[in-house]
């Protein structure tokens, strides 16, 4: 009998709660439609040395007519993703920021998973003002949602002193293919005993950079159909990766600190990665003058170019009260302010994707660390050549499958079989 009462209490309790929760949803759905101005707009981003610093500069530079405070909050990227997901899926806009930074690889999944949660900027900014390749990933369904921010333009950072020992100059590595790169790598290892690069078997950023040189990605144009089996660029990239392994020119690392440690301690002769690595390269002050940056090697295929991208992120405005003010803030700072971009480059080394900014003086500065190279103007000229691809919805989900596939391939399974397997797995998982 007691048990019966207990069950009864539980059931009543649940019914009451269920009723409450459905009522809430309706209420919040209605209120988010209205737009009124607010006193404070909140912005979320990660990395105090880069994105947060850029926001601070933007706040200083803002001269629009909005009368509001900008509240900048630093969160780890993982935390931002979790908070956005839990907040947006619960249907409440309480506690959500006005402005948020989202990584380009994840942008489409947020835009599609939470339609109406983001405020379109189509009429606010001119998407032609920004690097082309950023537009595909920051827009959805014909509307521009993201304000393209930092460039993930990739470069091949090389140690000129090691190359010299092996009889090469940076020019010999300029505009080469990955196959040529491997040959040079073998010679460099012979002459110096140093590995050519680091490889992290759990992070296929290397593969992503390779396939983007040919305008290819893990998914089709539609952003959701896995494009793995029969993807020639991916095949080529896998083959190249294996060649690097076989040639024994890669130092295996398993996390970020080992990756940074490898080039800071002079263990590798080159670092092919995104330009955001520059501050980490410069950490080793004793290596000043021993580095140069050349364009990314390309896949040895028709149509591949010597430019690629790794990472990068863009600003988004949430569809909550204060969105007009937030849009005004963004337009007058990251959306049009050339001077701001000069400050960003000079003070934080943050390379944006606002095309007009590249003509400024700050971009022409010669960097002593890189032997007097005009690094920023080089990087921004490569930015314009990056083939635009739609990163789509499933970059990280597919990559986790590919990592396993890569292990099988390195252990001797036929490439065709491997890619057919991963295609099958991806299709099964991404229904």
């Amino acid at each position, binding site marked *: 009998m007691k048990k019966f009462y207990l069950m009864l*209490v539980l059931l009543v309790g649940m019914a009451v709660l269920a009723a409450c929760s459905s009522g809430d949803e309706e209420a919040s759905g209605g209120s988010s439609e209205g737009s009124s101005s607010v006193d404070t707009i909140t912005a979320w981003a990660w990395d105090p040395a880069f994105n947060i610093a850029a926001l601070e500069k933007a706040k200083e530079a803002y001269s629009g007519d909005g009368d509001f405070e900008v509240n900048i909050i630093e969160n780890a990227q993982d935390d931002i993703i979790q908070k956005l997901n839990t907040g*947006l*899926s619960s249907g409440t806009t309480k506690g959500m920021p006005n402005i948020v930074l989202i990584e380009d690889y994840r942008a489409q999944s947020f835009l599609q998973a939470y339609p109406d949660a983001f405020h379109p900027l189509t009429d606010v900014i001119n998407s032609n003002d920004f690097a082309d390749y950023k537009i595909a990933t920051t827009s959805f369904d014909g509307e521009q949602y993201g304000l393209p921010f930092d460039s993930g333009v990739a470069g091949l950072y090389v140690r000129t002193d090691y190359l010299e020992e092996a009889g090469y100059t940076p020019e010999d590595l300029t505009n080469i293919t990955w196959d040529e790169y491997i040959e040079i790598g073998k010679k460099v290892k012979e002459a110096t005993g140093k590995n050519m690069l680091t490889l992290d078997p*759990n992070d296929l950023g290397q593969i992503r950079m390779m396939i983007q040189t040919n305008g290819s990605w893990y998914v089709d144009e539609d952003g959701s159909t896995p494009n793995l089996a029969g993807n020639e660029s991916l095949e080529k990239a896998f083959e190249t990766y294996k060649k690097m392994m076989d040639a024994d020119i890669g130092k295996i690392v398993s996390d970020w600190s080992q990756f940074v440690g490898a080039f800071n301690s002079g263990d590798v002769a080159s670092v092919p990665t995104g330009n955001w690595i520059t501050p980490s390269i410069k950490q080793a002050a004793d290596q000043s003058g021993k580095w140069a940056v050349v364009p990314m090697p390309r896949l040895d295929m028709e149509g591949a170019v010597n430019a690629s991208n790794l990472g990068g992120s863009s600003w988004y405005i949430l569809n909550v009260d204060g969105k007009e003010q937030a849009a005004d803030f963004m337009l007058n700072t990251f959306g049009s302010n050339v001077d701001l971009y000069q400050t960003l480059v000079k003070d934080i080394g943050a390379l944006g994707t606002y095309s007009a900014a590249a003509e400024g003086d700050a971009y022409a500065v010669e960097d002593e660390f890189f032997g007097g190279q005009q690094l920023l103007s080089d990087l921004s000229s490569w930015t314009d050549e990056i083939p635009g691809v739609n990163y789509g919805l499933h970059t990280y*989900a597919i990559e986790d499958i590919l*990592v396993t596939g890569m*292990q099988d391939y390195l252990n001797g399974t036929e490439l065709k079989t491997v890619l057919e397997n991963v295609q099958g797995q991806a299709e099964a*998982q991404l229904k």
Partner: protein
Amino acid sequence: MSQQSTKKGELDLPVSLRYKETRREKNGVFFRKKVGWLFVIISVIAITIFNFYPMVQAFLLSFQSGMGGNLEYVGFNNWQRLFGDPTFIAALTNTSIYLLIQVPLMIVLALFFSVLLNDPKLKFRGFFRIAIFLPCVTSLVAYSVIFKYLFGIDGIINQFLLNFGFISQTINFLADPFWAKVVIILAITWRWTGYNMIFYLAALQNVDKSIYEAARIDGANAFQQFFQITVPMLKPIILFTSITSTIGTLQIFDEIVNITNGGPGNATISISQYIYNLSFEYTPDFGYASTVSYVIVILVVILSIIQFRVAGEKK
């Protein structure tokens, strides 16, 4: 034991008083029950709101699927999807391996240590107890990171093995599917053995010394004492610790994420990490993620029933 002592106490009261007490109890039984319910109702409501309601909601969610907020009911699709999902199967296999190897290993070790540390002749008992229990107060993330560096390719373990000539070339523990699992198992065992040991130590205090004395007089050696007396006396505690450890291992997350992040490939991914990935790492599908969560619930229930049947009282 305790019942006997209260009876003794009651016997001190005059007989008339005892009768009055019982009559008053009889009159107020309904009132008392109500008051009792009042005390209980607060926690019943709180548990309902914060435990049962979310459980029911999560169960309903496990029949839905879709990106982020666009969830819709898909019937048993999620449950079917489980069986064809290689990542889920890998996660389930890995978690089972951790469970099958790590839990028995840890229980035996904990039992072994607790018996050693219970020896009254042992010097510095307090020090050893603290030393073995100390890992339990360290933060999960902190110790995971330390393990990661210990077993790194330039880590102290590799240096040690290399310098003493056990290996001729460094082993990349965390990039090898087999060794990565070994590292995870070592890490969890290090972290949780002391925790379980404390339960056994506490239970051993309650084992009557005269039983051991009698056994010694009968000529039982230390092994016989251990298997014939200690283990049977600790049976309920062993059952309790193996159930809590099983649940803990099924939910393992922090260590995996921080030491190997599931890699190499999916060689160390656990069910909980897969749930996290489905919700936050990939395009969010909370429906499917909660289906996977319910697999853990089902496993915990099944394994606990088995453990009760095998080790528990017959009644």
